[in-house]
């Protein structure tokens, strides 16, 4: 039971923060299939920082990890500029732009990873080796039955994600910026009529999307894998999109979706182990998020609504 919670949380939360990134972009009206590219590029910058500065910190120090997260967010935000420029300034098709940005991210990070490895460390490898993050257990709390799992073997980044998610929620639903941003996804012309700059709002939203995805990517690199390479992030961007749709483009529901995906996955693995089934059965578990999302869309399509102006190319001259 504890294992399910521990593994479920450590998978669900990074996924959640990536999905929140997706929400920012899509609620502003910009379709975002590029989450995968954002998280890959962001995590690359973070990991690059770690390997370049590996001599600066005492071994075992957790400082580089926190700095890496900051750099991953900056990297993700900067990489997201490509999608933002294509969609908002160049008015390219947003789906195409997303696909192109993903393809480019894989090519770019793969290339740069090998180049850095070859040029600086003189070895040919397509991954950056990092440490696995330390874990924290909160003693008295961890002993509580069932709930104790939430306080056992917790990655420090889980707290960071929770804090960042709370800030995101606040920005989205309580701040002036959030009010305007969500309005853009419904009727950009109303926002324009209210005297706000729609393009600038959307641009900011896409960059935030990149920053949050970068953070999520970095957490994946630190927790599950302990290294960075292209192969660690393929698939998670689209899984985050599924979570976002499942969560109806709302932050609290999306958290629910991610927890559902995460716990279902952890419970599935646990069950397979318990019953002594071969590892291949875990693949069936992996389909769960997608099957659930598709079923949700089929049976509750009335209640599941994408932002009204999502994917629309905003043209100020048109009325």
């Amino acid at each position, binding site marked *: 039971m504890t294992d399910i919670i521990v593994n479920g949380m450590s998978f669900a939360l990074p996924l959640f923060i990536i999905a929140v990134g997706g929400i920012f972009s899509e609620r502003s009206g910009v379709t975002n299939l590029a989450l995968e590219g954002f998280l890959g590029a962001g995590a690359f910058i973070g990991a690059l920082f770690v390997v370049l500065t590996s001599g600066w910190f005492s071994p075992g120090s957790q400082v580089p990890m926190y700095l890496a997260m900051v750099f991953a967010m900056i990297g993700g935000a900067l990489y997201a500029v490509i999608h933002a420029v294509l969609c908002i300034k160049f008015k*390219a098709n947003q789906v*195409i732009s997303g696909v192109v940005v993903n393809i480019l991210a894989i*090519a770019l990070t793969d290339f740069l990873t090998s180049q850095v490895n070859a040029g600086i460390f003189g070895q040919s490898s397509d991954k950056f080796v990092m440490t696995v993050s330390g874990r924290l257990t909160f003693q008295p709390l961890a002993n509580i039955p069932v709930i104790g799992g939430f306080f056992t073997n917790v990655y420090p980044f889980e707290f960071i994600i929770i804090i960042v998610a709370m800030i995101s929620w606040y920005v989205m639903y309580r701040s002036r910026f959030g009010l305007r941003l969500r309005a853009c996804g419904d009727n950009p012309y109303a926002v324009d009529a209210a005297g706000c700059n729609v393009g600038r709002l959307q641009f900011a939203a896409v960059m935030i999307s990149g920053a949050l995805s970068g953070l999520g990517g970095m957490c994946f690199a630190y927790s599950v894998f302990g290294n960075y390479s292209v192969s660690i992030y393929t698939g998670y961007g689209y899984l985050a999109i599924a979570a976002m749709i499942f969560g109806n483009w709302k932050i609290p529901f999306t958290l629910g979706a991610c927890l559902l995906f995460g716990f279902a996955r952890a419970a599935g693995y646990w069950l397979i182990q318990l019953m002594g089934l071969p590892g291949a059965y875990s693949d069936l578990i992996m389909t769960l998020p997608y099957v659930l999302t598709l079923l949700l869309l089929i049976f509750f399509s009335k209640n599941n609504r994408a932002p009204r102006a999502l994917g629309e190319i905003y043209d100020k001259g048109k009325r």
Partner: protein
Amino acid sequence: MKRQTNGSRPVKLFLAVMGDEKRQNISIPLFAICLSLIAGALLMVLLGKNPVDGYRSLLQGCGMLMKEKYAGGKGMLTDFMSYLDIWTPMIFASLAVAVAYKAGLFNIGVSGQMLLGGFIASVTVGYSDLPGIVAKPLVILVCVVAGALAGSLIGLLKYKFNINEVVSAIMLNYIFQYVISFFILTFFVNPITRQSESVGENARLTLQNVEIGGMKTVVPLGFVLALGAVAVTHYFIHHTRTGFELKAVGANPKAAVYAGINVKKNIMLAMALSGALSGLAGATYYLGYLSSIQPKTLVSTGFDAIAVCLLGNSNPVGILAASFLITIITKGGMYMNSSIGVPQEVSSLITGLMLLFAACGVYIRARLARAADRQKQEEKSMASAEDGSAPGQQAAEQTRQEEVQR
């Protein structure tokens, strides 16, 4: 005004080079290709390599230029045939994207449909000992049907439940990927390679180790089919009634309703055709170029195809050219790496940039249209200046307004 006069000569030149709207269909992708090739060359220079050597090795790797030396029993033909082998699925996949796109739909699920077709054909026909003359057509048939069903499912979800085709295709991609992986690992796995068991030579669409002129080579039968598919798709889109209806639905669904066209039927049809072409891509990939399936992996072909389609302006002939080029870069990258030591990632980077520049095409087109308009207006105001009215002010006003609108 000042900036305008300064910039007018290069602008005019650029306008003249890019040509009118119809010529831009070709000139803008060419522009994107040139830019990315230049970027690639710069990259090679930065890596301390000679770009001419680099690009030459790309062509050599694809059997279009002679290499310095060949291993025993191999030659230019060997390389060229294996180039055709990997080009074939790319053609099918890009056509799949194009057919859907003509009807205003995005088939981002090509990779999943390829996998589904390839898997079903492998387990039904690939592991049988039917004679080749039966097995090969059967493989194609199974893949077409499987792909078409997967495609129509997306179409059905779209018009019955109003689920965006991009979303359902992504979900289905992963569902196919994991379910098939489960079956492979459970029932069909080769314990050494950790991939599915190889299909028999009887079912394979690419003949292996054929001797032609003393050289051992592969013979991709699917390539002929792919060329046929380009021709048929071209004919279908441009010259048949159904193709016309499909395009009408894609270009303006409301006008299509008004013209008496059944929109729902055409959405289903477009997705089914697109899925069938994806199935063909799967057949030539998993039972042609390869003979087994790697579990838990979607090939990138289906996603690259979206970009190829973009570069080829979703025109079958354009797609043939665009996929030809992109495959040279991806396939030749391997040889570029082994012969002159340019990392293979450079070639994927060139491809990525090419797609990026191609995606900017809409913007370039809009800028060109605006520039052309402005030029026309200037000419008009020149002309009316001779009439004695006050056109300068008017033209300036108009330009300023365009600035404001931007």
